[in-house]
């Protein structure tokens, strides 16, 4: 695959670094009891968010899951409203009403994060349909986990997308586990997404999800095809989450050898080494690291300074007229 231009390479590195530091901070805030509820971190899976978003146009659409901070940040949503949303503050992306699992930023085409497994896949088809109706060349990208390939909505969505040749890309982040169960133990085929592709007339596509440039090229090819009317793609990106499934899950159900093997394949140091070998000045990368740290610190302070939600918010935005009074 061709080397990407250095400006793009540095973007990929910056996105991954920012996401990594953001997620680490989210974990710390959770441990300090500042994030109520739960969080599902994308630590270890940054290359997929960074590579895919880099291949998208600004007016393309993203659908993600409860493990979606990474996809939202990668599309350029500033850190402060995302962090504030995790903290449930009024300066959050959804003013604290969505929380970690339900990020949404329509101004950047992020049409929601969904915490019912598979729900976003069928909805993404609708947004892809809308681009067709308007006659625009916008592409919709939706993320899913390996576990999601076993729910009905996945199959309904792929069939729909294939039948109508919709401009939609399904990106399965195969991190080998659905919560605590190895995906291989509960799936009829070895490759949960790729081995299903043929059922819908699609090519099986597997990519090393920890190789950010490989992800970028694979996504760019699929997105380009969809933009030109070539229909949907299903991409399986192999990766691993560094932490547990959610909250403070230490992930003890995973064999130590396996964890060790995958930590050695951490996408960020790997990419840093690639960039250095290509002659990128180390000071430039250090500068990106430093700015990312500062950005996360600033976002944390701004988020913490945000007001706690007013109690009235619990009862608003249920119906279009704003009122809940009718029903209570």
């Amino acid at each position, binding site marked *: 695959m061709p080397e990407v231009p250095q400006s793009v390479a540095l973007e990929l590195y910056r996105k991954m670094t920012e996401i990594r530091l953001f997620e680490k901070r989210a974990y710390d805030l959770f441990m300090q009891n500042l994030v109520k509820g739960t969080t599902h971190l994308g630590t270890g899976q940054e290359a997929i968010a960074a590579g895919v978003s880099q291949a998208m146009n600004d007016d393309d659409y993203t659908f993600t899951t409860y493990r979606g901070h990474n996809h939202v940040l990668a599309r350029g949503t500033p850190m402060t409203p995302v962090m504030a949303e995790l903290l449930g503050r009024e300066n959050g992306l*959804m*003013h604290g*009403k*969505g*929380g970690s699992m*339900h990020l*949404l930023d*329509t101004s950047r085409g992020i*049409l*929601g994060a*969904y915490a*019912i497994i598979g*729900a976003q*896949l*069928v*909805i*993404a*088809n*609708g*947004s*892809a*349909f*809308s*681009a067709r*109706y*308007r006659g625009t060349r916008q592409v*919709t990208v939706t993320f899913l986990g390996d576990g999601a390939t076993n729910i*009905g*909505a996945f199959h*309904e*969505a792929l*069939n*729909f997308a294939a*039948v109508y040749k919709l401009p939609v890309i399904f990106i399965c982040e195969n991190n080998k586990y659905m919560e605590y169960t190895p995906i291989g133990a509960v799936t009829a085929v070895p490759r949960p997404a790729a081995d299903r592709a043929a059922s819908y007339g699609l090519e099986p596509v597997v990519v090393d999800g920890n190789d950010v440039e490989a992800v970028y090229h694979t996504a760019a090819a699929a997105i380009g095809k969809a933009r030109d009317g070539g229909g949907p793609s299903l991409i399986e990106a192999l990766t691993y989450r560094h932490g547990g499934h959610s909250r403070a899950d230490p992930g003890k159900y995973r064999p130590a050898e396996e964890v060790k093997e995958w930590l050695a394949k951490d996408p960020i140091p790997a990419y840093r080494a690639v960039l250095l070998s290509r002659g990128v000045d180390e000071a430039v990368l250090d500068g990106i690291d430093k700015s990312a740290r500062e950005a996360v610190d600033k976002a944390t302070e701004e988020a913490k300074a945000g007001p706690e939600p007013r109690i009235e*918010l619990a009862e*608003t*935005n*249920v*119906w*279009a007229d*704003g009122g*809940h009074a*009718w*029903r209570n």
Partner: protein
Amino acid sequence: MSTLTLSRGLNEGLRKALEDDPKVLIMGEDVGKLGGVFRVTDGLQKDFGEHRVVDTPLAESGIVGTAIGLALRGYRPVCEIQFDGFVFPATDQIVSQLAKMRYRSRGQVSLPVVIRIPFGGGIGAVEHHSESPEVFFAHTAGLRVVACADAAEAFTMIQQAIASDDPVIFFEPKRRYWDKAEVDTAAGPDSAPPLEAARVVLPGDDVTLLTYGPLVRTCSEAALAARTEGRSIEVIDLRSLSPLDMDTITGSVSRTGRCVVAHEAPVYAGLGAEIAARITEQCFYHLEAPVLRVGGFATPYPPSRLEEHFLPDLDRVLDAVDRTFAY
């Protein structure tokens, strides 16, 4: 004025909505070429094209999910579910996404999706094809739930539902699809009462009979029969099951002092329970008798040879009316 069946009234209403707003789309199984199993969308694909009246795969969650995605981008999709019992595979999308997205996004997104569901029994069509699942949806905050009762109502209510910025679960009384009524197809939906208003079908003074959907006709016939015995029953068609038009309900019950609620859905935890509780709270000192309920039994929908027994008829409605005079 034209004389139309309820099914045709819906068809004309949908046609108007498609004409008035290019963002309106229809999707569902067999809705296009066939025109739907009850022919409600008959001829619409021919006139508006395959892109606006879409024959979908057999995938209820896929249909409703796609509609949500379209609504997220400003479209107003109308989904047809073939029969009441087939809505359950879409429940996840309806309850977990459609109803909740406005709330969780703090009003940043609006999902004007209409889901049309033929409901109720009486056509010998057994379970999955004769059920009344309205209360599952009425219980879910964020959805409007309505039921139409005749052709004229169907014509205006479907247009109002499509114009609503809330998601609407739109119930159609399937055994009344072939009933005819006069419909003014030239009238706009604004000349009709709003979607959330109940309507007095027959005025009366002695007892209030609340109902909706297929039983509006049954209850009207019961009221006319009771008149011959000198009993004056006020029949109210609720139209909107969520929200409830409590002003119309309490206005009537405060006057009559007696109330019966009738629906085909099982009585247990049905809409009648909610209404009875609210009337008790709001009209306690006006009541001469407890609010009584008539409805289906706490069983799955029975086989067709037994459905007459399950469905509230004139006798069961009038028996309940009589019982309100026993206190």
